[in-house]
């Protein structure tokens, strides 16, 4: 094998450097580009999208038709349970964020982003925003199916807007937690596993049955865990009655803040080698 063919004269790279520099993207521009990428992922991953919508709908049908009669025989249970189903739906949809973030972190993609003239962390912003968009669509479908099978909210436009605001805030908070899980998990599979723990939270809340019907030792947990005030607020806004809006907003904002701070701390410390 000969090396002779390769010794062609070349100009040193620095003499052509003006052309060789790339501008990169501002944080806002790269966030926009990454949001587009993550939304494209959502569309491509058709199975994931269908599951994120189908599971909550099936769950709602299960609770209203199969368990509904036993829980509350008069058929009014649907008005009670739909707000809870909306939260569960948000949890299901957000869980895939952990997998997406972990996939970026453990494969070579993040390594490449980190060598580019961009803020690499905006890739995670893309996953989070896409999750919020995806989940709002899923939530709209769940509410639509709910209306079809007899959900009859009494809210005015302002009530709907408030409920939508709380739901969006909750989706954002849960997604941030899942993004953090994706950053910490060793593999996309592990990220998927951790996510399940959070999905159990709504069951120990007033989502499906009033807390008064639970054993007494559970009351403290059920009453004071974040999901309960959020559900009570959505229920109050849509169906009328008492809300715990301040508590709900504080919980969401608190979770979001803690997850964001931990993620910002963790991201630059992720091992590259």
């Amino acid at each position, binding site marked *: 094998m000969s090396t002779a063919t390769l010794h062609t004269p*070349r100009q040193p*790279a620095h003499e052509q450097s003006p052309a060789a520099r790339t501008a990169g993207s501002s944080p806002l521009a790269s966030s926009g580009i990454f949001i587009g990428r993550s939304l494209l*992922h959502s569309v491509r*991953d058709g199975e994931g999208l269908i599951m994120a919508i189908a599971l909550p709908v099936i769950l709602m049908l299960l609770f209203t038709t199969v368990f509904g009669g036993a829980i509350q025989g008069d058929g009014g249970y649907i008005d009670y349970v739909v707000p809870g189903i909306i939260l569960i739906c948000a949890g299901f949809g957000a869980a895939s964020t952990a997998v997406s973030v972990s996939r970026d972190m453990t494969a*070579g993609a993040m*390594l490449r982003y*980190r060598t580019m003239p961009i803020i690499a962390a905006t890739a995670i912003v893309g996953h989070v925003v896409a999750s919020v968009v995806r989940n709002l669509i899923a939530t709209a479908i769940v509410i639509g199916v709910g209306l079809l099978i007899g959900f009859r909210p009494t809210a005015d436009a302002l009530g709907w807007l408030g409920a939508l605001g709380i739901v969006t805030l909750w989706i954002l908070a849960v997604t941030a937690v899942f993004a953090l899980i994706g950053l910490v998990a060793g593999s996309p599979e592990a990220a998927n596993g951790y996510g399940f723990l959070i999905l159990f939270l709504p069951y120990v809340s007033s989502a499906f049955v009033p807390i008064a019907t639970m054993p007494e030792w559970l009351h403290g947990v059920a009453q004071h865990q974040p999901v309960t005030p959020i559900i009570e607020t959505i229920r109050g806004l849509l169906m009328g009655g008492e809300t715990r809006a301040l508590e709900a907003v504080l919980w969401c904002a608190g979770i979001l803040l803690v997850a964001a701070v931990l993620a910002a701390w963790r991201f630059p410390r992720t091992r590259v080698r």
Partner: protein
Amino acid sequence: MTPTIEVAGLGKTYGSERVLHRLDLSVDGGVLALLGPNGAGKTTLVSILTTLVRPDSGTARVLGHDVVREAAAVRRLVRVTGQSSSLDELLTGRENLVLLGRLLGLGRRARGRADELLERLDLTTAGGRSVRSYSGGMRRRIDLAASLIAPAGVLFLDEPTTGLDPSSRARVWEDVRALATAGTTVLLTTQTLDEAEALADRITVLHHGRIVADGTADELTALVGGQTVVLLDASGSVIGRSETDGTPASVARALTALDREHLASGDGEGTRIELRSPTLDDAFTAITTSRPREEVAA
């Protein structure tokens, strides 16, 4: 004149494992191969030069910019294709290129540039398919193309052909050669000599975090010195060998020795002799099995 890459006294330790020992290196254009076995410190050096890892000591500059203090400026200049695929599995090859082009600031030109690049590398058909469906070789070539979507000051290729079958390897070699002819400065790491010899103008041998040899393929080969007289049987396989230092007198002595051992014993039918120069393989073995020269306490 600013060298393309300038490394001085560069050191890096992971835990108790010293990966780089006060490395000095200067590259000025062309194609440089960093050659060394697994664990030699090749990837760590590339990671430092591309701002992914901070060195513990020493300095590294790319086109005059310090990789730690001026990381942002360095990121405008370098492009890397690492060992693990950086491609987005859920997108097509073309979408991957467009995404990276837009992130690098090409804006609307990213699409045109991606199409042009795919066509030039003869990857247009593959570009329209999902990365998931790619073979290892195709993945590597698109990953390499992703590094070329926007002009780069220096291109780093970390073991670009490891794990590829011979024909994919040949295609990647072609891609790298085309780049070199176009004037891009390339620093590639490799474990195999034939790759270094085929692609690089200059080879730097890295062993246990130190540079143990540096030069052209011919210069490295010359380090081993002498030639060998080999005796081949009728089928062409070596049946005897004798080392020489290359002078006529020592070649004559070697011939006499071989004659005494083999030809005299009657198996001379169809045999022939050959005078062989050391290969780069011999040089590499000799270099990496000898003790590093500057074994001093740090």
